[in-house]
């Protein structure tokens, strides 16, 4: 009997230990399973920003349909244009993104005078219902299509904050002298040279110059080449311009990706070598209703002198030939290669090394990094 009780007790203890071990294994497995499936992107490329109501979702969808719409000649496309749809150029990785094929980049030439006073060259023409190509200007510069993800959030960064962080005379002697692009129509915020002050202005310009469609803002259809007399009805109504602007405004920022375990630490190197002086990891936002959040676009939205290394073209808006707005780096790996404003950099490393002017010190510091640290920094840049 005594032996039986002893055996039963032992068996119970054994069973209890086995069960406890089983529970522990299950819990560890569960935790590790959760770790391997941590969300890397609550919202993905092409989604609208989170927490908007059904009306805003419907507006987003309507704008999206206009954004992907292919316009034809009977709707007013031309007589000169670069593309038949917004999505023709903004499509990688999904509608709203950028473009990777260099020969599709938009060309600008001083020999061209477009209908809004700029120098955008329009590659295609419509003559007698047939599409042809215009002869290329003898000299031109190329501009890579910029991604539109998160633009609406950049619009909500308060001007007061940007005024506070600008330092045009480099009073703090850090070698960085970012300035706000003040132009006659306002303060520039969008485009490689900060030439657009608002998303609506950007959309109006794109409809007019890239698609050759008149809007209520720009009523003249290719006015310089084909003058049109009288107050013609716009081919794209104000309502449609607003719908596309709303779509862009509601596009979510790019998702962040998980950094490989062996390459963690790039964020500190990014800071240490001075990249974060201009490519600011955090910016505040304020919306009309007063709510605010911190965003991570890696820009300061200011103009900086990039030196002779990147100088080219001509003066645009408030920007000199060598000045550029700090390009937002969020979603960087999905916007290239190629990289930089004209696609001259074949990879991210080359883009860093081509930085001059105010960024020359950071570029030099990058060159001197140990390979392991370079790898960490590049992985960080691929994941932000």
């Amino acid at each position, binding site marked *: 009997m005594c032996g039986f009780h002893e055996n039963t007790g032992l068996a119970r203890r054994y069973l*209890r230990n086995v*069960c*406890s071990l*089983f*529970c522990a294994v*299950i*819990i560890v*497995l*569960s935790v590790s*399973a*959760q770790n*391997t*499936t*941590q*969300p*890397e*992107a*609550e*919202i*993905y*490329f*092409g*989604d609208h920003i989170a927490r908007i109501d059904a009306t805003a979702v419907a507006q987003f969808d309507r704008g999206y*349909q206009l954004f*992907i719409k*292919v316009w034809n000649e009977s709707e007013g496309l031309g007589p000169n244009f670069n*593309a*038949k*749809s917004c*999505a*023709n150029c903004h*499509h990688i*990785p*999904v*509608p709203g993104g950028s473009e*990777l*094929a260099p*020969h*599709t980049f938009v060309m600008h030439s001083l020999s061209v005078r477009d209908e809004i006073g700029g120098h955008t060259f329009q590659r295609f023409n419509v003559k007698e219902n047939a599409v042809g190509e215009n002869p290329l200007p003898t000299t031109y510069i190329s501009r890579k299509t910029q991604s539109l993800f998160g633009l609406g959030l950049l619009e909500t960064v308060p001007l007061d904050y940007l005024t506070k962080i600008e330092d045009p005379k480099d009073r703090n002697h850090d070698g960085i002298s970012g300035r706000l692009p003040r132009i006659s129509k306002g303060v520039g915020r969008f485009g490689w040279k900060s030439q657009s002050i608002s998303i609506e202005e950007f959309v109006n310009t794109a409809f007019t110059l890239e698609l050759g469609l008149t809007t209520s803002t720009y009523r003249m259809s290719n006015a310089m080449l084909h003058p049109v007399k009288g107050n013609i009805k716009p081919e794209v109504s104000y309502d449609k311009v607003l719908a596309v602007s709303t779509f862009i405004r509601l596009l979510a920022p790019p*998702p962040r*990706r*998980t950094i490989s375990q062996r390459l963690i630490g790039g964020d500190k190197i990014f800071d240490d070598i001075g990249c974060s002086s201009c490519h600011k990891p955090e910016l505040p936002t304020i919306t009309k209703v007063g709510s605010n959040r911190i965003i991570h676009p890696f820009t300061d939205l200011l103009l900086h002198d990039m030196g002779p290394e990147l100088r080219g073209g001509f003066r645009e808006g408030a920007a000199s030939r060598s000045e550029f707005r700090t390009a937002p780096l969020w979603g960087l*790996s*999905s916007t*290239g*290669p*190629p990289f930089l404003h004209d696609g001259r950099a074949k990879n991210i490393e080359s883009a860093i090394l081509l930085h001059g002017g105010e960024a020359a010190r950071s570029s030099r510091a990058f060159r001197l990094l140990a390979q392991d640290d370079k790898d960490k920094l590049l992985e960080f840049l*691929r*994941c932000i």
Partner: protein
Amino acid sequence: MKKRRFRVLAVIAVLFVLTNPQMLIGFKGGGGASPFAGALVLVTNWADDTVSLVDLEQEKELSTIKVGAKPYDVKVDPDGRFAYVTNSAASDVSVIDIQAMLESTKIPTGLSPRDIQLSKDGKWAVTANSGDGTISKIDIPARKELFKVKVGSIPYGVAFSNDEKLALITNWGENTLSVVDLAAQKEIKRITIGSLPYTVVVPEGQKFAAVSSFGSHSILKVNLDTLEVASTLPVGRSPWGLASSGNGKIMAAANFSSNEISVLDAVNFSEKMRVKLNTTSGPSASAGLAAKAKNVASNMEGTGIVFSDLANNTISALDVTTGKITNTIKVGKAPYGIAFLPRKK
């Protein structure tokens, strides 16, 4: 006290097993033979410039290979000896020696090649070159481009008619489908089709091409005799990848925005099943993530479908018989293209 603690722990353990059956080693769900037994797939990791070789049954990434910039699509030759990967931020195709698991060479194409289709004998291929509005026909043994044919704006998808005389190309930038006579090296027709057409497939033995229309949330059926759109099948939101089983009976579409996989009956051109990725038993569901299905591939019989999830950087296996996701494997960043390796005989 000890007895109570033991009981509580036992109850917790049982609850864990019941709610997370996939965590038990060897559990594959559904019962019966897994359609993924011994299955190997190649996956292009668009944001990593790599290709992963994945063992679906073992749920393991076996190796990765560095390829060109922004690898998009992948196809494997009938012997499973070489794979061909389009590098969409370049103008070439990487040739992968599958045995050696390395890139053996690159074949030049037009600009920014997207989908690639191999002939049934594996001797030639066609790429859709989104950057310059052309297709390239490639001589596989000679590893060179034979010729280009001009098609529409931003071509993405490519498929062949069953006799391989015609190439069908989706022109994403202008909502058309180009029909190219490969012998004449000439586009013979351009058909208006849906909005943002991405992928085109011709199921084996069927007399139609199916096109995924990302902007119209539907699959369009094109009659290959008349070269006209015959019907439209609504699926989930933003179908991107589209695949057909080797036997031509099943098709699958990855509905990118609504996070679903549509399984289609190719013979009747109807939707057989729609699997919501957030509510299935896959790990995506357990973590509460919004999956972003980009591409799909089917096995020969149409019993197993694999899809890539861009948001979670995984590929998952869907058992068509049970409608359950049985395996999910972590791969590189932004998995785009998927191809099954032929099974060893």
